[in-house]
C-alpha cells in the first residue's frame, strides 16, 4: 500500500501541540490571561465574547453608541420567552493592562455588583430562574476594556468596605451582552453598549457601592443595567399591525357563565 511521506504518523507529537496552540491563539480575538480574566487581542474592535457582531445595528431607542440585534423570526423572538437565567459576568481587560494586577477580589466585586444590577433591572419583566427550559433565555454578559486603576489610599474606603490594594478602572469599559435560548443556545438578541458612562470610575473596595468615592462606578453599572432593560422594553412594545391586532383580539371575561 502506498503511503504518503508526510502522513501524520511521521509528524512529531510536540509539533502538533505547538501548531494546535498557535491556531487557538490565532483564531480567537481574546486570550485567557488568568482565571476569570480574558484580554482583548490587540487591534480588535470587539472582544470576541459574542458569537457574531455583523448583525448588530444602531438602536434609535437608546442614546449613545449602542448596537443591538433582535431576532425577527415570528416563532422565535424575544416575546417567545418570559424567564431568564443571568450568567455570571465575564471580564475582558484592556489590551495593554497588566493581568497580574487584577486581583480575584476586585474582579469578583465588579462582576457580582453588575450581575445583581442586571437581575434587579430585568427580574420583574423576566423572572429569574436557574433551570434551562424552552421559554427561558440565558443572559450572557461581559465587561470589556477593564483596566488596572490606581492604588487605593488608606482613607479612600472605610475598613468595613474591604478596600483593595489596587482599584479597577472602568472608565473605558463597554458592555457586550447576548440573550440566547437556554436550551438550544440559539441567539435571540444581542447588545454592545460602548457609551462611555463611567468616565474615571473605579472599583476600589469589595463593598464599593457603599463608598462615596466609588459612586461613579456604581452609577455606571446601574445605568448599563437600566439600558439593557430599556432595550428589552423597546422590543416588547406593541407597534403597527401587532398593536391593532392585539387591541382587536382582547375581550375581557365578565360576569357571564364560562362555558365548558
Amino acid at each position: 500500500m502506498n503511503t504518503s511521506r508526510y502522513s501524520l504518523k511521521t509528524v512529531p507529537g510536540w509539533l502538533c501541540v505547538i501548531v494546535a496552540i498557535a491556531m487557538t491563539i490565532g483564531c480567537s480575538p481574546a486570550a485567557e490571561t488568568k482565571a476569570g480574566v480574558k484580554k482583548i487581542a490587540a487591534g480588535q474592535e470587539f472582544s470576541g465574547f459574542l458569537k457574531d457582531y455583523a448583525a448588530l445595528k444602531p438602536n434609535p431607542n437608546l442614546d449613545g453608541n449602542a448596537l443591538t440585534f433582535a431576532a425577527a423570526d415570528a416563532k422565535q423572538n424575544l416575546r417567545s420567552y418570559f424567564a431568564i437565567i443571568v450568567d455570571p459576568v465575564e471580564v475582558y481587560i484592556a489590551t495593554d493592562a497588566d493581568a497580574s494586577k487584577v486581583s480575584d477580589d476586585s474582579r469578583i466585586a465588579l462582576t457580582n455588583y453588575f450581575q445583581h444590577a442586571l437581575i434587579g433591572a430585568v427580574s420583574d419583566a423576566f423572572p429569574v430562574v436557574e433551570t434551562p427550559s424552552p421559554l427561558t433565555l440565558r443572559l450572557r454578559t461581559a465587561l470589556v476594556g477593564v483596566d488596572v486603576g490606581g492604588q487605593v489610599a488608606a482613607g479612600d474606603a472605610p475598613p468595613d468596605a474591604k478596600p483593595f490594594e489596587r482599584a479597577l478602572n472602568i472608565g473605558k469599559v463597554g458592555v457586550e451582552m447576548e440573550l440566547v435560548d437556554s436550551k438550544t443556545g440559539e441567539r435571540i438578541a444581542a447588545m454592545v453598549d460602548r457609551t462611555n458612562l463611567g468616565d474615571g470610575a473605579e472599583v476600589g473596595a469589595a463593598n464599593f457601592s457603599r463608598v462615596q468615592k466609588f459612586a461613579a462606578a456604581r452609577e455606571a453599572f446601574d445605568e448599563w443595567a437600566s439600558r439593557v432593560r430599556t432595550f428589552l422594553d423597546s422590543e416588547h412594545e406593541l407597534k403597527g399591525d401587532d398593536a391593532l391586532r392585539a387591541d382587536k383580539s382582547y375581550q375581557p371575561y365578565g360576569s357571564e357563565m364560562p362555558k365548558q
Partner: protein
Amino acid sequence: MKRVLSILGGLLLLCSSSYLAQKDEGPPFHAYVDSDLCARLMLGPITTARQECSVKTYKDGSNAVLVRLDDNTVFSVNKEKMVKEYVGGFGEAAGEVKVKSGTMKLQSFKPLDRGEIPPGPAQKLLDVRTYNAKGSAETHEKVRHELAMIPYITNFDFISFTMVGNDVILTGWTVRDTNRSDAEFRVKRVPGVANVINNIEILPLGGTDMEIRAAARAALQRNLSTYFWSNGSDIKIVVKNGTIILLGSVRTQQDSDIATVQCNSVSFVFHVFNMLRVTPPAPKDKG
C-alpha cells in the same frame, strides 16, 4: 447570672413572637369559597350559576380560593383542606392576608349560611343589583384598550376585568410581576375609574409547568396557526400546577375542540379547561 440572662432572653423571644403573630393576623372576614377558575373569570354576584360553576370546576381540578365579600378580593389559601368541603358556600375566614400577592395563611374557617352574612358591604356584593350599576361604556372601552396594550403580555397571560360602578376589578393570571403592577397602574390613570381591586395572580414557574406551556403552545401553533401572529395570539394558554386554561376566542367550535384535544395530548397535563369563546367572523370578514 447566665441563667437569668437566658431566661430573660427566652421571655423576650416569646413576647416578640406572640406580638408578631398578633400583628400578622388580619380581622376575620366574610368569604365565598370559590374555585380559582370561577373566581377569576366570573366576576359578579354569587348566583346559583356561579355556585354551580365553583363546584364543577373545583371537582375538575381548579384550586379552592376565598373571595372576600367586602371588596371582591381573591385569596389563594395555604390550607385548602380547611375550605374544600365548603366550595360553593360561605363562611367567616381568619388568618394572615397579603393583599399584594393575593395570598392568605388561613388559621380558621367557620361555615355560614348565606342568610347569616350581616348587612353591610359583604351583603351588598351578594346583591345582583349592585352589579347592574355599570360604569360608562367609554370608561370601559378605555380600560379594555389600556389592558390590551400591556407590552409584556404573552401567550401565557390573561388579564380580565369588570366594572362595578366606577370601580374596576382586575383579575386573571400572569407569569410576570410587571404585568400585575402595570395593569393596575394603567387602569388607575383612566379618567372615570375610582378604585382598582387587583386580583391578578402571579403564576408559579415550576419546571413541569414550563414544559407544558412550551408544548401546548407548539401544538396549538402547529394546528391552529391562524390564531397566532408574530407578537401575540387570539388563544391564551394559562398553565397552573399541571392544569391548562384556554382563554380568548376562536372562529368555530371545531377549532375550539381541536385546541382541547391538542392540549390534552401534552405530557403531564391533569386537566384542560376550555374557556374559549366561539366568535364567528363578521360577514364582511368572510372569504
